[in-house]
């Protein structure tokens, strides 16, 4: 648990997203909006992605970040937000799943 009373600016996804924006980069922000069962990251967690596929933060324990990054690049291109759902691999249309057995819903939107 991160108990720091001040923001860890070098690792904070929303601070990094703001920095990327100031540098003129195109940015997408992914947010965990719902979880069921045992999910590794709580509701509200962020992954931020730039158009080159660089990313910071996490929406899971590393299980689905790859898939979120590729979706995010499409979202940056189209400007249209998407809702992604990940669960146990065989129960969903997605290729990747959460090994913990939980399910998560991730909202991916473009910054600006």
């Amino acid at each position, binding site marked *: 648990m991160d108990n720091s009373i001040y923001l860890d600016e070098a690792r904070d996804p929303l601070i990094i997203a703001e920095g990327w924006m100031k540098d003129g980069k195109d940015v997408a922000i992914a*947010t965990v909006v719902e979880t069921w069962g045992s999910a590794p990251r709580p509701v509200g967690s962020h992954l931020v992605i730039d158009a080159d596929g660089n990313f910071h933060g996490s929406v899971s324990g590393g299980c689905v970040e790859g898939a979120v990054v590729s979706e995010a690049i499409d979202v940056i291109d189209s400007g249209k937000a998407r809702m992604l759902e990940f669960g146990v691999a065989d129960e969903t249309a997605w290729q990747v799943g959460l090994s913990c057995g939980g399910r998560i819903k991730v909202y991916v939107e473009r910054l600006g």
Partner: protein
Amino acid sequence: MDPYALKTLNAERRARRAAILVTDLGDGRDRLVREGDSVAGELGQAIAKAFRTGNSGSVEAEGRTFFLNAHLPQPRLVVIGAVHISQALAPMAKIAGYPLEIIDPRSAFATPDRFPDVALHAEWPEDVLKRQPLDSYTALAAVTHDPKIDDFALKAALDANCFYVGALGSRKTHAKRVERLLALGATADQIARIHAPIGLDIGAASPGEIAVAILAQTIHAFRSRGLEAKGAAA
């Protein structure tokens, strides 16, 4: 996400102020709500609850689905006095999720030897609080018994609207303290916010037990923020 909302949100987070980003999941529009902003209806109630609990989540209101991402500063505890009670309080508060700092200008008390792994300031509260001001997500417990050390910090905690202000001492000691705080310019309403004698009334006797009582009272104050005001208005 609206770039301006992101910039504002980050500024609030850097300043240790609570804010909630409200996103309409239907059309993607978002807006930032600061603590104290008034929002009407069901959405307003959900926002008020999210400020209190710090929990993020989706909410249905006005026929739409909103996602509320609650960004609350990490609550923390500042203790004036590197005394026996603080030695017990330091590890407990850390475990409970309330990082703790200790301020005591008496360098014989404030030693790393007595307080391993604790943020310790062997300085006057006046000097430390100038650098690191108190805020409404900070609790302050004054436990030195010494007006020279406690009083300034107590007044500063009341002015900064700390979510918890507690002061060690009997009712008699506190009555004298009230006189001094009035002389320092504190109002009667402010002084009424001080928990004195300090700690939940669990009959605590030893330093360790008093530390439990202080920590429990701090947690209660944090988790019931805003509820007292609502009860009074109803």
